[in-house]
């Protein structure tokens, strides 16, 4: 027999054998026991549940990303906010210090003058209503209804029984 003929026959034999094995394997699938089938089904259900669990993060990814970004922003901005507060405090302190230096540099007469001016300013603020008509500051300038009634009743000598 020719060499190529040998190869052809061998190839056909191999194919026939492969087909026979395939057929036997296909047939064996029908003979898988119900217990094994049940366990395969259970495995499949577990795998599908696993798949759904792993898909969940992709749904929450934008939300968690936004939360993370917000957190990072707070971490970055918070120290600078603290610095701003500290800066404001430093400015106020510097102003007070400048006032103190100014006061210390004044001579006695100027200091008295400043004190007088401050006293006059305070007086003007404290007694704005004490005007020329000499009315009591605690008494309102206009009458209140209840007050009028009680005054008039007292003046008329009305006695409430019970």
């Amino acid at each position, binding site marked *: 027999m020719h060499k190529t003929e040998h190869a052809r026959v061998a190839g056909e034999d191999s194919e026939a054998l492969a087909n026979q*094995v395939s057929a036997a394997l296909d047939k064996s699938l029908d003979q898988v026991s119900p217990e094994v089938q049940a366990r395969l089904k259970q*495995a499949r259900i577990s*795998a599908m549940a696993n798949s759904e669990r792993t898909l969940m993060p992709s749904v929450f990814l934008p939300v968690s990303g936004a939360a993370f970004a917000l957190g990072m922003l707070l971490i970055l901005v918070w120290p600078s906010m603290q610095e701003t507060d500290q800066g404001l405090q430093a400015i106020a302190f510097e102003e007070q210090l400048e006032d103190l230096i100014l006061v210390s540099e004044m001579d006695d007469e100027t200091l008295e003058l400043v004190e007088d001016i401050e006293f006059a300013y305070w007086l003007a603020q404290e007694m704005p209503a004490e005007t020329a008509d000499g009315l009591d500051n605690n008494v309102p300038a206009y009458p209140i209804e209840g007050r009028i009634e009680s005054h008039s009743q007292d003046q008329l000598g009305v006695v409430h029984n019970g």
Partner: protein
Amino acid sequence: MRNLENFLISVEKKAFRMAQLATHCEADALDIVQDAMMKLAGKYSHKPEEEWRPLFYSILESRIMDWHRKQQLKKKIFFWRKEQAPETEDTATETQPTQASPESELISEQLGERLLACVAELPVQQQQCFVLRAWEGLSVNETAQAMGINENSVKTHYARAVQKLKASHTSTQ
């Protein structure tokens, strides 16, 4: 998600048989198939559907090879132990009681069982290569990718598997 479930339904029995041929153990075969399903569903479900089959068989083969490596390691560590006889609850014992079939069908059934027994006795790489090529219909390239070997090795394993099957098949006839 429905598509993935349908895909798993379509391959689960075949995968179980392949793992059972390689391990000779029903429980281990089930574990291997479950692992393969879990990994495919957990990590590759977002991949295009046409990639699922090669990916699934690649995971399955990887698990089968891992199982064999562990067995070999066990044999080396516990060398004084007698090798346990492989579980014999394979296709022969799982055959469901059938009604009286025609003689030809009986002969072909017996022939099929003998063939499967021969396949189960092949070295694991030759066996898996043969099953993937002949039964699952994967190309040489797909088989090489699934098994993590080169195409020439696939051809060699396949040729040797066929040679051994022929030899054992004719001797049992």
